[in-house]
């Protein structure tokens, strides 16, 4: 019974996350079609959509990914269900505030809420809109902070400390590899460390923006504010993939009946990515010439190295575990495997952009959205969909139809095209975050808008399949 109600809660996380992702896709498609010249939104509406699209995608993916992490982690450590529910409630309250702020009070400063934009909007939106948005984000952040504190507490209880959760005692040779913490624990430890830091910094910078909005006479150092904002935003967004990747470990080892063991190399890779993730946000500031030079160079060098340790170890591990295992391919395992591929190629445009010389030219073009649409759309989000199919299979044995397979191919092809469209736009120097495009830039945007419609169709099939989870009566007890 306990697992049943737990799984239902997790299904709720995934369902709410999936639904929001779907609605955000709609906003994305409408923006692309506007840029493509097919429909007229008006710049003000465009920026409202831009704001809600960014906020919603990051928030919903983080929510769903934290649900996935909780599902697997709960098998190894004792987590608090109360906190898990609290996070969901906080999230929903925050989302409502953000939506009201954006749509009823015209708030539109993009999800990065870069200081002093929430306050200075040239009268495009008022104090109330900004406060609703900022407080909404704060409440969402508080929910996540509670969740990660609980996860951290549980890991410390089981392993002794977060250092041991990352397996430092094994790296240093004090313990043998066979006593290594479970891979899910290692990943969760990493995510806990980076996200608690990100959320604490985020709370500070959000409160600062709130003070500035209430009384604009209190001014702050904008460069420090930008650093804090990205130390929060980049790290939090980045952590989504590290939460989702647990699916790869758990699902592939279950399907192949082979253990995915944490060895020394694996632990070192995760430790490296922990540190890199925390310090590489500076690649968002490569164009700020006033930043200390050493920070920017560190940002460039470490950005190259950021995802790589975990990516390489996971991709290699995935190939090894599947090799000659006689694995039975279904949608869940297929999506998992493809997500690895999407993650890998999604990193490439980021590495190009993290080069300072290139960054000066590319960072404000659609090249960057190209990178994160590929990375998230073909990597992290695919892992979440894979988990949806996994959960419906292990819990309820819901049959998979031809339609689901068609959706899989449709999703992969059209999502790939959406990402490519952004990259092509970037290559022809189309600026990002622009509501209107000159005719030369319209082609790719229009193309992307149409491809986006197919992404939405495929996603709606995924979600439809997952919705059966709540209605399907076939219980696991039979198996």
């Amino acid at each position, binding site marked *: 019974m306990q697992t049943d109600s737990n799984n239902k809660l997790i299904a709720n996380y995934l369902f709410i996350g999936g639904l929001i992702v779907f609605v955000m896709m709609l906003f994305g498609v409408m923006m692309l079609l506007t840029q493509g010249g097919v429909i007229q939104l008006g710049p003000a509406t465009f920026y409202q959509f831009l704001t809600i699209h960014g906020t919603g995608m990051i928030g919903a993916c983080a929510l769903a990914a934290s649900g996935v992490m909780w599902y697997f982690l709960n098998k190894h450590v004792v987590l608090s269900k109360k906190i898990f529910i609290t996070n969901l409630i906080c999230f929903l309250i925050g989302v409502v505030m953000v939506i009201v702020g954006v749509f009823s009070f015209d708030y539109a400063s993009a999800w990065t809420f870069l200081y002093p934009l929430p306050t200075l909007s040239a009268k495009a939106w008022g104090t109330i809109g900004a406060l609703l948005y900022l407080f909404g984000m704060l409440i969402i952040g508080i929910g996540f902070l509670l969740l990660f504190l609980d996860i951290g507490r549980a890991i410390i209880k089981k392993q002794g400390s977060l250092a041991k959760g990352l397996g430092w005692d094994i790296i240093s040779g004090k313990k043998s590899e066979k006593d290594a913490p479970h891979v899910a624990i290692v990943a969760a430890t990493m995510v806990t460390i980076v996200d*608690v830091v990100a959320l604490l910094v985020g709370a*500070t910078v959000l409160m600062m923006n709130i*003070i500035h909005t209430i009384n604009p006479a209190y001014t702050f150092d904008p460069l420090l504010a930008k650093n804090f904002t990205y130390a929060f935003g980049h790290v939090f967004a980045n952590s989504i993939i590290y939460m989702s990747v647990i699916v790869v470990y758990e699902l592939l080892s279950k399907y192949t009946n082979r253990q995915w063991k944490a060895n020394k190399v694996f632990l070192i890779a995760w430790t490296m990515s922990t540190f890199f993730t925390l310090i590489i946000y500076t690649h968002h500031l490569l164009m700020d010439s006033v930043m200390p030079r050493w920070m920017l160079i560190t940002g460039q060098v470490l950005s190259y190295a950021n995802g790589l340790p975990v990516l390489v170890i996971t991709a290699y591990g995935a190939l090894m575990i599947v090799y000659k295992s006689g694995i039975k391919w279904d949608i869940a395992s297929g999506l998992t495997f493809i997500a690895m591929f999407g993650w890998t190629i999604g990193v490439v445009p980021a590495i190009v952009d993290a080069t300072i010389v290139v960054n000066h030219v590319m960072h404000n073009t659609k090249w960057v959205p190209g990178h994160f649409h590929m990375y998230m759309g073909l990597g992290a989000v695919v892992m979440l969909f894979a988990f949806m199919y996994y959960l419906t299979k292990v819990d309820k044995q819901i049959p998979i139809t031809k339609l689901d397979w068609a959706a899989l191919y449709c999703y992969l092809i059209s999502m790939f095209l959406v990402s490519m469209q952004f990259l092509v736009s970037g290559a022809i120097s189309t600026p990002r975050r622009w509501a209107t495009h000159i005719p030369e830039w319209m082609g790719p945007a229009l193309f992307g808008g149409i491809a986006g419609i197919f992404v939405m169709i495929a996603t709606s099939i995924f979600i439809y399949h997952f919705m059966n989870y709540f209605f399907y009566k076939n219980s696991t007890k039979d198996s």
Partner: protein
Amino acid sequence: MRLSLLLYFLLILPISREVLESYMVTHMFVQLPLLYAVGMLFPNRKEYKTRHIWSNIIFVLGLLSFWMVPRTLDDALVNTYTEILKFISLPLIGYLWKVSWRHLSEMTLAFIYTQLVSMCGLFAWLYLDTPIQICNNYLINEQKIVGAIYLVITIFMCGYLLKIAFIGNKKT
């Protein structure tokens, strides 16, 4: 008991009030914490048992954050009622926290602690960075000292958090 009352008596003397309140730093980081300490030092003979832990905690957090509003510091100087409130509420906060915190779960304590880290960081930034005078009754360079102290507090609190997380400690 005696120590607590003696401290309270010393703090309430006009001369010590005058001296401590004439500087922002001593007002904020000497007088207020000492008043809080008065409550912490006040003994409770029997084991404290109550169902109202959460009422206590809400009172403590609600009023503690109230005393973090810059306005209250100014008001305590010019408004007698605020000054009286200060001398009553802070010892009470100290006492209530002392008897209540052990009943809280590790999670709640961790949450309160991390929120405090964020708040102190925010105040460090606010007091150090803003060009505006925050308290009308105090000089702007005193404000910077206060900000610097907040920064030091933040750093130490982060250090302690790291120690718990990485070296391990039974208490969270």
